[in-house]
């Protein structure tokens, strides 16, 4: 199993501190989503959990060990990260991309094993990309391309997958497609998934656990149905809204209040 937590984590970026001695345990085998306004530090936190950012103090603890003390490859065999808006060299095919996911298992001597082949094949199948294996990445739609990237992180065969805004730049259809895929992967292999999402309603629908971040601290965390209400949205996003039950899924659904432009329409409707 992959367990990951932050212990007394202090992060700073360019001299300004973002998190001060943060403690956070990510639940095993569930989908956790970080929410918060722009610049609240949610991506920074995710990056530090993948040791892309060195903490100024404290530690990220992976399976009981400080990741700063593990070798890069050891970490990469337990935890994979898909950064925001990844880009690959021109002309790279889906298969070539997914094969890179096996990098942490290779060394100067051990080049390409049967297990590598098997991991790549199952990653392509799980993401529905097997038919596109020989296609260059540039020739695919945004959603397919993102699935190829997810296939690469799957080929890494890690218990924990971190994704920084995996649905940015995608249209609504592809956003749902990607989140469905991640949900499916979590359900099938019980992999721990942690991601940053902007859309609060999709976050409520797909997360088992929500971590709401405000000004470099965890404002609230828990099951979306338990914690997401109008006061949380107002505190975290400085946005007034009504939170109702999603008529299809029963999860919290946020209806934001506009400022002035459509006020008369709303008043006419409510009365």
């Amino acid at each position: 199993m992959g367990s990951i937590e932050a212990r007394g984590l202090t992060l700073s970026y360019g001299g300004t501190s973002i998190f001060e001695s943060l403690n956070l345990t990510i639940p095993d085998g569930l989908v956790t989503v970080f929410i918060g306004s722009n610049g609240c530090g949610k991506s920074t936190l995710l990056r530090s959990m993948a040791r892309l950012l060195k903490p100024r103090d404290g530690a990220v603890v992976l399976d009981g060990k400080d990741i700063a003390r593990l070798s890069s490859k050891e970490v990469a065999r337990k935890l994979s990260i898909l950064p925001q808006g990844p880009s690959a060299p021109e002309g790279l095919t889906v298969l070539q991309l997914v094969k890179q996911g096996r990098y942490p298992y290779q060394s100067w001597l051990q080049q390409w094993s049967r297990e590598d082949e098997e991991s790549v094949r199952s990653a392509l199948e799980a993401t529905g990309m097997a038919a596109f294996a020989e296609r260059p990445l540039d020739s695919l739609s945004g959603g397919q391309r993102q699935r190829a990237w997810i296939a690469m992180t799957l080929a890494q065969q890690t218990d924990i997958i971190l994704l920084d805004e995996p649905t940015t730049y995608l249209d609504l259809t592809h956003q749902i497609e990607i989140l469905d895929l991640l949900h499916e992967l979590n359900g099938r292999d019980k992999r721990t998934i942690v991601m940053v999402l902007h859309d609060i309603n999709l976050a409520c629908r797909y997360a088992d656990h929500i971590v709401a971040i405000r000004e470099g601290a965890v404002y609230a965390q828990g099951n979306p149905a338990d914690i997401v209400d109008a006061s949380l949205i107002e505190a975290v996003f400085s946005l007034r809204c009504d939170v109702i039950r999603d008529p299809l899924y029963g999860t919290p659904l946020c209806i934001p209040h506009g400022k002035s432009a459509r006020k008369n329409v709303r008043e006419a409707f409510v009365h």
Partner: protein
Amino acid sequence: MRIVFLIFSLFVLLGAVACSIAFGVTDIPFAKIVEAFTHFDASQEQLIVRTARVPRALIAAAVGGSLAVAGTLMQVITRNPIASPSTYGVNAGAAFFVVLASGLLGIDGQAPLTWAGLIGAGASGAIVFVLGSLGRDGMTPVKLTLAGATIAAFFFSLTQGYMLADGRMFDQVLVWMVGSVAGRNLDQLLNVLPFLGIGLVIALLLSRHLNVLAMGDDLAKGLGQSTARIKGLASLAIILLAGASVAAAGPIAFVGIIVPHVVRYLVGGDYRWIVPYSAVFGAILLVGADLGSRYIAMPSEIPVGVATAILGVPFFVYIARKGRRVG
């Protein structure tokens, strides 16, 4: 398929080298070239072959391949499609140190000048790297390119100023400053060959890691790569390849930009192929350019650096317009 084409390219290179030995102000039949090595009789044609044409063709091949591989490495580690030893000022720095060593310190002979070239390449590369990394958002392609252009202009100005002040150097260095493979001997090649060889071997060993690095630092680190170590080794290879090339043939521009793009277009995004192909294509380009440069203003010769510039400028504009992604 790609291996077949690579072997075919090697034969093209071989043919280009043979033509480079045969054709010029004096055309020499192929049979005579063979005789120069099997039955040496010190005739004028044989002397041209052995002392001028062969060293010249081999240096062009070695330097062309090296600059192309150095350009490939630079484009990956900086994720900048217009990175090359000339745009980043590495060639200019090497040239300045070579001129200074031979002029001011009176150093003669290829071996110490090679070291001067390596030191110059390392120094200018380090300065560009530091200047390009200043500021909060770290190293970016734009900052690196600006820093490279600045440092290239700076070292070229220093070199020119020094050459003007020291009049006796002017003639002998001017041709070299544009980049030329003419008038070299085999010893000069043998002197730089170990450095070029080590640089190439490092580049080949790194190629698998470059595939991961080309996706960006975050992804490479996420996949467990020690990006600093890979970039450090790549920088070492660049300094060896570019520094020794400049010491042998002067700061030849554009080979390092053109070749990696042509190769990526032909063989795709896998650096395990891009690196060896760059070496062969770079060699073909410079041998070909050197051969062509003999015909531009015959019977006088134009330095090969002029020919690569004539080829390179339109290509450079094309890349800048298209904005090809490297990594």
